[in-house]
């Protein structure tokens, strides 16, 4: 008796389960056909870091203080700066980041004294070679101009 009841109840549960799946059958797909359609990244998205262009300066405001270099847990940032003139504040001339090691913690952005670092929304960073992950922020800044 118990067995018969179990078989009937079990079959019913299977049929309802199949009902659930077949109801999904006609619905719109939730996946995106990626290369055909592209995604819009959210404003908070963390790509690699990027230098902020300040309108008033017309350029970045990195003073090559090295805070970001010190705070970086994985030591991926290289900054070099020089004084354009004597007694003038130092300005960064080279800013590299090895994105292949970056853990996107955001400590550099959070601790930047001049707030000249931000996250990019770049998300297509596939490389064939690990050195291609090295991003030259200065160059990107110039290109974006």
């Amino acid at each position, binding site marked *: 008796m118990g067995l018969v009841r179990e078989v009937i109840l079990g079959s019913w549960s299977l049929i309802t389960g*199949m009902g659930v799946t077949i109801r999904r*059958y006609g619905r*719109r797909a939730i996946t995106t056909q990626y290369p055909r359609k592209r995604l819009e990244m959210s404003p908070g998205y963390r790509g690699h870091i990027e230098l902020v262009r300040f309108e008033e300066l017309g350029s970045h405001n990195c003073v090559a203080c090295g805070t970001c270099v010190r705070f970086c847990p994985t030591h991926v940032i290289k900054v070099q700066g020089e004084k354009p003139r004597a007694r003038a504040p130092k300005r960064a001339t080279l800013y590299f980041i090895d994105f292949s090691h970056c853990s996107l913690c955001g400590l550099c952005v959070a601790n930047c004294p001049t707030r000249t670092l931000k996250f990019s929304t770049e998300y297509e960073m596939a490389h064939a070679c690990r050195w291609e992950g090295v991003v030259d922020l200065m160059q990107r800044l110039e290109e974006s101009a």
Partner: protein
Amino acid sequence: MWQTAVDILGPDLAAIVAGAIGLVALVQVNTLFLVWLERKVSAHIQLRLGPMEVGPHGILQTLVDGVKLLGKELITPRHVDRKLYVLAPVVVFTGVLACLVVVPFDEELQLRDLNVGVLLIFAFSAFNVLAILMGGWSANNKYSLLGAIRSVAQNVAYEIPLLLVVLNVLLWTNSMQMSTIVAAQSTLWNVFWMPVAAVIYLICATAETNRAPFDIPEAESELVAGFHTEYSGMRFAMFFLAEYSNMFIVTAVATTLFFGGWKSPPLLGFLPVPGVVWFFLKVYALIFVIIWVRWTFPRLRFDQLMNFSWKVMIPVSLIHLIVYAGIIKIIR
């Protein structure tokens, strides 16, 4: 009068050769289509799109995959039993081809209409089991062996209820000839007459073809890939072909035995549609159900699978057989 081999081989040699070529082609094309169907159906059930790139809606995707498999290196692991390892994918194919010989696609479209057609299909299904055993054993891999053993136990267990329910149909139509069985269903399909048998048949057929939720022999979460873990390239593709062809065969048999074969559905007889279309429509509808089931349920455990066969399917099909035999006896 006794049939000689000449009768069976037939005088129309050319027709045989053409038929054989046709069957091989059918197996290939059918598998390509079924794989595509499976991927598409599963994708839609899972709110995805599935293959979309090669051809319209990815219909050529499996063809491309096949070409890739053809081009792959045939890896033979070091400690395998080479002879059996190489032979297994061939053996798995013989059964498939033999079974297709008697499938009636249309009134005239049948390679051989043996008077023991149903028997032939079940006789040759043994080769499938055999190939799985050979493949699993020769690979010298514990997962493969476990998969093979499971597969055999499962096939043996589910063949019994399968045969028992098929006996119902044979009793009812009084023949083992596929065409006669179809002809007997011109007014009423057998499925209306014995729905329980049809359901049991489909369940057992799913188990026989190692499909989910009975895909114990190749349960990927337990046994990696079961008996064909060590196979790659075209050899793997042969197993793959055989699996999908087996699916086609069991559904084709189901169509013939229960769903009226190439006959049009009741009330739709006026449509000028050739029988072969109806046949394939029915087969693919059944396959759709099997695919749908696969993508809905979790897998059974091995002992539960066996229990289900021995404690539920076999008694039920036995009782069914006895009851129907009684009914048939009374009716006649």
